[in-house]
């Protein structure tokens, strides 16, 4: 086992890999350690215990990254002190470790929610994570995500694929020295639960299954009447019906709109004002400004709707940004007033996340030139894609 290994060397490498994979740790703690590569040495310097690395390696086998975090947390208060028995070490480490890990996880989730790659690290599934997901879901899955640590195993037991994962992690970790905020982008890190199979395929499978069940839960909250139904097939049935009914409603409403003969927009502000006032008070005035700004747009020719449309939507962002604050409190009412459906927590969160993301997108887009609608749009899309790259 680990004891037979050369204690300092391999254990140090191992620990440094663990350290590298948790970039959130405050490396100032290491006391001026020049680089993360020397983390293992630093630890030894700290503890002055030649057998420490050995024990560290052993403990890491069942504590995973928590231990490494705890290592960083522990040494400064007691540098050079020799730890007691392994179990005491484990327990003493676990508390600051868990706190630190939670902090790490939280810190990591915030940027991770934007940029984290969700591709299974060793999965062979051909589908690259599609970039097409709302941020709402991204954030939510980021929150509900399993721990971001890789399964940690003693080197002797690692399969080839896993060691490649760890190598990838090491590589990434070392590449991340300059920017500690950057989460690993290419791999999904999953903690293997106790008593469950830890080989690569089942891990990837499990990740996939969890993602699917998560999304089914979202859908369940979204589609009215799905709460009573349990079971994938029935729920899918409901979802299909719902989407089909929505599409049919769009058709029907467009027909209805077509029948309104003088489709004039001059009175629209007042009408909307009256209509929306009951639902969401303060937003009415903002709709006003929205209307006035839209009326200022020149009537371009009846060419492509999309091309001419996008620059205008970009232009209107200035007004939209002002409306953000006013509207943020009305999100609750937005979807409530139509069908009286009480918005669940989830829906609110979804809306809030979308709002935030759209806000951020707009803020960025404000600086973009939009001479060509397509390029601006694609840039916008690329920006979002870059942010949520491979998340879904």
């Amino acid at each position, binding site marked *: 086992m680990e004891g037979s290994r050369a204690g300092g060397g391999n254990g140090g490498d191992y620990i440094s890999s663990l350290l590298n994979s948790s970039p959130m740790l405050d490396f100032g703690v290491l006391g001026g350690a020049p680089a993360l590569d020397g983390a293992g040495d630093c630890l030894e310097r700290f503890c002055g215990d030649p057998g420490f690395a050995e024990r560290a390696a052993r403990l890491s086998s069942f504590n995973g990254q928590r231990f490494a975090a705890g290592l960083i947390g522990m040494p400064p208060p007691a540098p050079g002190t020799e730890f007691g028995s392994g179990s005491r070490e484990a327990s003493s480490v676990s508390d600051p470790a868990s706190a630190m890990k939670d902090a790490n996880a939280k810190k990591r989730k915030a940027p991770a929610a934007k940029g984290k790659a969700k591709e299974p690290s060793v999965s062979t599934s051909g589908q690259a994570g599609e970039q097409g997901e709302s941020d709402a879901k991204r954030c939510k899955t980021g929150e509900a995500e399993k721990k971001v640590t890789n399964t940690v195993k003693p080197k002797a037991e690692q399969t080839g694929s896993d060691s490649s994962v760890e190598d990838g992690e090491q590589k990434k970790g070392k590449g991340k020295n300059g920017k500690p905020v950057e989460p690993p982008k290419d791999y999904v890190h999953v903690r293997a639960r106790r008593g469950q199979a830890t080989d690569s395929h089942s891990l990837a499978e499990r990740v996939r299954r969890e993602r699917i069940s998560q999304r089914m839960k979202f859908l369940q909250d979204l589609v009215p009447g799905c709460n009573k139904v349990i079971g994938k097939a029935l729920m899918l049935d409901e979802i299909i019906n719902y*989407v089909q009914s929505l599409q049919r409603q769009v058709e029907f*409403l467009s027909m209805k709109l*077509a029948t309104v003969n*003088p489709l004039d927009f001059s009175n629209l502000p007042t009408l909307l004002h009256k209509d929306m006032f009951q639902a969401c008070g303060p937003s009415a005035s903002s709709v006003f400004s929205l209307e006035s700004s839209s009326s200022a747009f020149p009537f371009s020719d009846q060419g492509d709707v999309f091309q001419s449309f996008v620059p205008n939507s970009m232009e209107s962002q200035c007004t939209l940004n002002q409306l953000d604050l006013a509207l943020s409190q009305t999100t609750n009412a937005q979807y409530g007033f139509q069908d009286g459906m009480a918005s669940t927590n989830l829906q609110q969160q979804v809306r809030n996340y979308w709002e935030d993301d759209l806000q951020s997108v707009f803020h960025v887009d404000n600086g973009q030139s939009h001479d060509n609608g397509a390029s601006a*749009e694609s840039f916008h899309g690329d920006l979002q894609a870059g942010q949520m790259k491979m998340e879904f």
Partner: protein
Amino acid sequence: MTVFLLVLEGLLLGLRKRGVAASSDIMSFHERKRAIKVAADAALVNARGADATRWSRTMLADSELGHRRRNWGGKVSVKLIRERVLRRRRGHRQKLGTVGSAAVLARAMVRKQTRVLRGIVPGGEGLDDECTLLGETLDYAVCLKAQVDVMQLLVRALQAKNP
């Protein structure tokens, strides 16, 4: 900025641009309806972010084939070709034989339903991953709901004025 308001604004702009706002002499009823629907879809796609989701990209691509080809030309054709190929590949895998246990039945039903869902959600055909399909569905459903709400609001507002 909520999706709802984005769609609303987009729809109004689009309608104006398409000349739907004018009196009905210029366009026939069906033309108007179609124009409204197209404008609504355009507004929806733009509200969501045209490149952000797969279904939005598909909708954009589909509608652009009706109009001119632009810089997206490459993407459009690649997407369509890919989807056609995938459709053909996925087409005829039918499981004959006796029905097994309930679990097998359920699985078959689920598979059938995911196929239906693929047909409904734009861009679903090219997706192999069930997980992303569900995500796209989620996204699409929320946006559709927003679209429906916007249009209902408009109808209500306009009909209140002209009884």
